[in-house]
């Protein structure tokens, strides 16, 4: 169900509906969410063990989603009886989020649409025990993601995790910056990637004798070597259907190879770099195209080709004689843009290029910013930046330009934003 911020019915109807819980039958009423707008959502105070934590997590998740304006003042009285919709409208809200904890470990969530004076969505969510544990927090994030979908039609990305490299090995962190921890049993690692199922990962293992691609089922812990005998194997990426793993491999230069994950077919190369670097593949959402970094022109550029390597073409370019380099492509989940790192005035910045008209938008300018990775909502990017003094992960809302720091502590880099985790809608 989508809320529509723009009033399309008469104020008479609206007045009649104020204070009511159901819309007048036969009358079309509502709001249309439009990109660039941020409808206000008032989050009511709530009672129960952990209630403040639930309210705080949901409020923060909705705020991080950058699609709604959260109104959640400290304290306040938990309302009893019908809500005074007019009051919340005067506070700038378009909707009111009411969460109650019946005491059975569940969370009852209702979204009141003020313009129609109705409860537009209501759902009971189970919160796994123990309270405040990672599973419990993930369940609360799912609540926030669902509420964002109710309000805007777009599901949030709070119930996701980000893989990254810290101290030479793999770490993961929740999308809100909590629960940062190493992935157990991983040695020297670079360039992590998520399988679309959210429970399998791949990464580059860097050893004294070379690098290879490893893949692990996070549920079972089973790990497999996916690369062949080439000395250099790097930058793994799963196809959107999860049936193939692409990576770069070679002894003198690297080419992109694709390895089916099922069946007896072996890996095959989709580039013929002849000593140049071809790496960092990223698939289009339909799996038919692939973008990658290549040095075949003598400098780094991003190419785009069919997923079998046919029809390669230069994606990023500027004027004749341009010797700047571009790398780290990440194809947006909506298929419309490719994010990448580009060198501007000697420093790397995060930019996106629209596939429709090849227009480029620079998103960063402060410090060094690189290695973007799209969130599943095709709106947020996680990237590495030294703007805070040391290299850390930051999250960028590509629509508003709003940024927040995701990691703190030791250097963090090479982020891969995962899909919505299993169980999330």
């Amino acid at each position, binding site marked *: 169900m989508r809320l529509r911020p723009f009033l399309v019915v008469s104020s008479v109807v609206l007045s009649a509906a104020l204070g009511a819980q159901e819309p007048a039958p036969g009358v079309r009423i509502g709001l249309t969410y439009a990109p660039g707008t941020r409808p206000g959502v008032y989050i009511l105070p709530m009672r129960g063990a952990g209630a403040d934590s639930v309210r705080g997590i949901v409020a923060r998740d909705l705020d991080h989603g950058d699609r709604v304006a959260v109104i959640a003042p400290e304290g306040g009285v938990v309302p009893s009886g019908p809500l005074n919709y007019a009051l919340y409208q005067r506070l700038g809200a378009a909707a009111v989020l009411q969460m109650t904890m019946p005491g059975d470990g569940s969370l009852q969530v209702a979204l009141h649409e003020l313009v129609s004076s109705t409860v537009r969505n209501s759902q009971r969510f189970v919160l796994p025990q123990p309270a405040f544990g990672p599973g419990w927090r993930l369940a609360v994030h799912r609540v926030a993601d669902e509420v964002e979908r109710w309000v805007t039609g777009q599901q949030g990305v709070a119930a996701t995790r980000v893989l990254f490299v810290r101290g030479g090995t793999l770490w993961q962190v929740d999308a809100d910056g909590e629960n940062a921890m190493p992935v157990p049993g991983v040695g020297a690692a670079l360039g992590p990637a998520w399988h679309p199922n959210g429970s399998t990962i791949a990464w580059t293992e860097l050893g004294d004798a070379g690098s290879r691609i490893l893949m692990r089922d996070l549920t079972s812990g089973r790990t497999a070597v996916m690369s062949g005998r080439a000395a250099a194997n790097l930058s793994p990426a799963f196809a959107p259907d999860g049936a193939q793993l692409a990576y770069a491999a070679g002894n003198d230069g*690297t080419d992109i190879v694709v390895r089916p994950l099922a069946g007896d077919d072996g890996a095959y190369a989709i580039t013929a770099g002849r000593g140049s*670097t071809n790496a960092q593949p990223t698939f289009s959402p339909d799996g038919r195209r692939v973008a990658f970094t290549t040095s075949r022109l003598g400098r780094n550029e991003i190419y785009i080709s069919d997923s079998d390597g046919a029809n390669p073409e230069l994606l990023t370019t500027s004027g004749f004689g341009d010797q700047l380099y571009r790398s780290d492509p990440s194809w947006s989940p909506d298929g419309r843009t490719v994010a990448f790192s580009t060198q501007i005035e000697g420093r790397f910045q995060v930019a996106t290029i629209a596939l429709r008209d090849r227009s480029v938008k620079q998103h960063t300018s402060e410090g060094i910013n690189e290695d973007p990775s799209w969130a599943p909502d095709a709106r947020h990017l996680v990237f590495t930046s030294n703007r805070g003094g040391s290299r850390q992960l930051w999250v960028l809302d590509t629509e508003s330009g709003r940024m927040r720091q995701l990691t703190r502590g030791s250097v963090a880099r090479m982020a891969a934003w995962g899909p919505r985790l299993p169980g999330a809608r």
Partner: protein
Amino acid sequence: MRRHLPRLALVAFSLLTVACVPKKDPSTSPEALAAAAKAKADSVAAAQVEAARVAEAARAEAAAKAEAAAKAAIAKATADSVARAEVIARAITATRSTFAEMIFFDYDRAELTTESRETLEAKLPILRANAGMRIRIAGHTDERGSDEYNLALGQRRAAAAKRYLVSQGIDESRIDVVSFGEERPMVEGADESAWSQNRRDEFEIVVGGDALRVP
């Protein structure tokens, strides 16, 4: 005085008696002959003892000299050996140093410079003199740019050095290449002086380093 008169008379008589005994020829008396013979024998024995002592002393002196000479010879030989070993050790150290000498690259490039080729040229006699030697070339980059791309760039840099050595006749099976990208900087820093030292190939002897032959 009167009391001593008898004693004096006795002494005088005794002396008179002795003086009146007739004398014999000393050379002909048996006692004299015996004594002479004994003296002669004693003299010979003494001479023999002395001669033996002298001979022994001479032998001891000679032995001491010989020992000293031997010690000196040993010391000299030892010194020579140490000096020779030091020379060899210095030569091996120099050979290792020559072999380990790094080559450096321009930013975002994997092509060998003229200086890099000269550095690689100096390694060729070492590789030829040590046919059983296996080596590993590790490519590195500076911190700028894509971390993953730099891993690939380091590989190209290592491969460029290998390609040159192979072109000069070194069996490619003796050369492994590996890239560490920007992960193992030699110099920490965020300026060109640090970056230029980090854009490098390192050379390591994997097999045959213990018995390195100096070309």
